[in-house]
């Protein structure tokens, strides 16, 4: 979009009017930034001095201890930058905890977390780019297809963190621009207190087909795939793995079971936790989260296991490129991934990172599919078949 003269004219006059207000606000922000910068310059010169003159003092020892294995070419300028802005589509609270875990490791870098849902986050990231003023140093997005578009547009800098070597080849498709921060699978979550032993048996033996079983008539909660990317992935991957013919028939049978649709995973998961509905296929994170809070939910991972991943990368033209690289380096490392599993109740993409989440100690837990047992969508094909998929889905649920 071009900047038209009317916009400029109106804006110019307004500048005079709101200038005073804006200056006051910006002034205080600026002075904050200056203070942080001054502190960082002081710190970095302190580290440099220490290195040059008084090697062995606690500052250097501490810095070296904390940054083992990090290239000094990244580390020293990162210390100088002293901060980074992280655009994230993951939960704010989890992102905040993760930023804190990072700052505990690298106290000389301040992380500003900016969380927004996928659509508006993409909108802001695009707006920043079109403006030519990059704000984000690191971007984490939940939709691999949008991430792929940005990679094609050159919006990410090349950087290969050491942890990438541990990732399975199938998840390194965006390398060297982006890396999976987590694996998301869809699980069948049910209220273990309210299901009868017969119903539980149906869930365990029939898997996804349980959703179409008359034993659950009127007690199934679903998530609207038109609204939630996770549900779109779920049903699309099933179609991809089992064929559209099977899927059309399966969905018609699920439809005959009178399921209800929720707009997102949270109310669906909450409705099973509260006993409103008995069974729901949702992102495993929400089931585990409910379980961790004490809700009587149990879960299984029927086959095919629909899976997708969140993706993160260093933004091209980032104002703090070295701090950003340090952040991604740490995030993809085993330490960063362990922290992410702990802070967000998600599954790591790194097979070396063991699952420590609450549900693995649950009496009903009998194991979880490995990465190799999970099915991922072919992104290009998924985008191309979007209309075909929704035609099928809407045919099965005409009054949806």
């Amino acid at each position, binding site marked *: *979009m071009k*900047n038209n003269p009317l*916009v*400029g004219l*109106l*804006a*110019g*006059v*307004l500048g005079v*009017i*709101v200038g005073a*207000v*804006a200056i006051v*606000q*910006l002034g205080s*922000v600026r002075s904050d930034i200056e203070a942080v910068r001054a502190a960082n310059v002081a710190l970095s010169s302190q580290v440099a001095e220490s290195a040059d003159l008084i090697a062995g003092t606690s500052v250097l020892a501490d810095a070296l201890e904390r940054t083992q294995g990090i290239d000094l070419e990244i580390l020293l300028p990162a210390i100088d930058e002293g901060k980074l802005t992280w655009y994230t589509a993951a*939960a*704010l*609270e*989890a992102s905040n905890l993760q930023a804190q875990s990072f700052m505990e490791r690298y106290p000389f870098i301040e992380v*500003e977390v*900016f969380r*927004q*849902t*996928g659509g*508006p986050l*993409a*909108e*802001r990231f*695009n*707006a920043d*780019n*079109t*403006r030519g003023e990059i*704000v984000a140093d690191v971007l984490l997005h*939940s*939709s691999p297809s949008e991430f792929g578009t940005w990679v094609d547009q050159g919006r990410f800098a090349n950087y290969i963190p050491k942890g990438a070597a541990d990732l399975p080849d199938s998840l390194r498709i965006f390398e060297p621009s982006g890396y999976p921060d987590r694996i998301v699978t869809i699980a069948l979550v049910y209220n273990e*207190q309210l299901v009868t032993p017969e119903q539980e048996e149906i869930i365990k033996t029939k898997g996804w087909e349980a959703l179409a079983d008359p034993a659950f008539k009127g007690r199934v909660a679903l998530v609207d795939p*038109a*609204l939630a*990317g996770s549900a779109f992935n779920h049903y699309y991957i099933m179609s991809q793995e089992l064929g559209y013919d099977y899927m059309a028939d399966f969905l018609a049978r699920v439809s005959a079971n009178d399921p*209800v*649709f929720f*707009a997102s995973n*949270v*109310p669906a*998961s*909450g*409705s099973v*936790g*509260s*006993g*409103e509905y008995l069974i729901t296929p949702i992102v495993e994170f929400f089931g585990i*989260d409910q379980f961790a*809070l*004490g*809700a*009587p939910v149990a879960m299984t991972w029927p086959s095919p296991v629909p899976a997708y991943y969140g993706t993160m990368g260093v933004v091209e033209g980032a104002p703090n490129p070295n701090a950003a690289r340090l952040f991604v380096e740490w995030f993809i490392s085993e330490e960063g991934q362990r922290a992410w599993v702990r802070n967000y109740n998600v599954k790591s993409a790194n097979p070396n990172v063991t699952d420590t989440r609450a549900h693995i100690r649950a009496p009903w837990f009998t194991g979880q599919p490995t990465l190799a047992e999970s099915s991922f969508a072919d992104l290009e094909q998924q985008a191309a078949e979007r209309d075909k998929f929704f035609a099928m889905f809407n045919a099965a649920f005409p*009054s*949806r």
Partner: protein
Amino acid sequence: MASVTDIAPTSVSSSDGPEPEERVAAKQRFSRGGLGALDLAVMGLSVVVMGIFVLLPLFALAFGALQDQSPTAGDTNWSLRAVQQVYGSTQYVGQIINTFEIAVWVTVFALAIGTTMAWAVARTDTPYSGFFEIMFLAPMLMSPFVGATAWVALAAPESGFLNAIFWALFDAPVFNVFSKTGVILVMILYFTPYAYLFSIGTFRGMDPSLEEAARMTGANNVQTLRRITLPLVKPSIAAAGLLIFVLSSEMFSIPGLLGRPAGYTNLPYEIYLQIRRSPPDWPVAAALGTVLVWVALVGMYFYRRMTKASKRFVTISGKGFRPHRMNIGKLKYATLGLGLTYALLANILPYSALILGSFLKYMPGRDLNLTHFTLDNYTYIGGRHFVQATRNTLVLSVTTPTMIVLLAVILAFIVLRTQIRGRGLIDTIATFPVAVPGIVFGIGVLWAYFLNPLPIYGTIFLIVFAYVGRYLPQGLRIASSALLQIHKDLEDSARIHGANTIQTLRRITLPLLKAPMLYAWILVFMLVVREISAAIVLYGPGSLILSVLIWDLMDFGRVTTAYAVGLLLTLFVLIIVLIVRRFFGIDLTKRDAP
């Protein structure tokens, strides 16, 4: 297009329709010839104000609807795809009908309940009127979406606390909040306060001699109400009705939460879907937004019809009488019953559920027991983001109403007290944002300012701009109607004694405007603090606000933590309202409100 004088509360002494208002205004204008430098300056200012807060976002929106992708993508091309998809197919007809259905039911019932209770509290001997004053204000302190989740906890068929009683008694539930009825009922509860607040001032300021005259000529209570009282309060009802109609036709959160499970959604939900899906389709969202503008225009049409008919009932004096409350006999038990039912459904039950929920680990349904209790939700408060969001909310909620009130006074003065050419246009333009749903207006503001040299992109002022544009019509309407109440003689006498325009404004007009302006301030403040739909697309790094934080907690399943934060926000609003009342002596529900 209706003028700005059409869209918010109509005051006591301006219970007449727009036409008489214009006549009065014309009489009260300063009679001066020619354009002075000051005139040019104020007119220039108002053009700029209208341009930046209202026109630019709307132009950006129209532009976006006619592009092949979001303007933020940079290299966009003109395209009719979105407009064709929205206007050239029948796929949204069902949702458009639902949008009307929700808006009409909610408007009719909210008006009926709110106006009846305002009348009962102000004009009749219905007991506990002080209690009802609070009960009809309190629902405004909570976000309707959070309130709706409380109703899920109460009235979900299998797990709702209320239904638990019926399960125990009859082994079957009675209520089902996940239904069309659920959507409409819950929305009625949260929109009724607007109807109450808009008409209570008029009822209080009404000259009782008219009603007495009716009764002396043999009319009974019902006849008096129908023939005298209702026609007098009609402009206020119309203004409240328009606001409720517009706000309820742009709401996506409650239809999404309660209607979606029943397969019942509206157009705003569809807009939300276009934004939420991956990848989002912004041009279609913008084009769908323009459909909602037509919906709002339908509301505007009925508003104008209603106020036109009321022009026969001109001018009631606002001074020199002591309103008395009439004895309505046994009818008072009906109004008492209505008030108590509302208090129970809109406040006591949902606030109880929220307070209870804020001490629970998750919402457990009928299985509730002691092991579910926790204080963790309150330890969340004090965290980094909570502090940041509270600080920003404070900045936002003080800056926005202040800017709106200042701008509204200046603009109303230009429209009503000057003869500057083109002043009527200000009226018309300022009305447009009323018709645009928050989330769509938010997109318009983002598109208008991301390339703009104004240094507001990425700051909290981006949200301030959106809110000023959105709520300026409310402020302008209150300012206009208040200015009309001040007789020109007062200003003229100041001028005869040698005061210039500025001195007259400062010494006469502004002091008289104090009370209604504070009323406008509080009203806008309450709307701003809870606002979420525009903020969702506009907040940036460092400009997180509490309403967004609550929404974020909800979005990731921390429902009971969201309750704790939501209750604190309610407390925050309550404290600010009480402070303003205490220091400025303003009572939202009393006579001195416009």
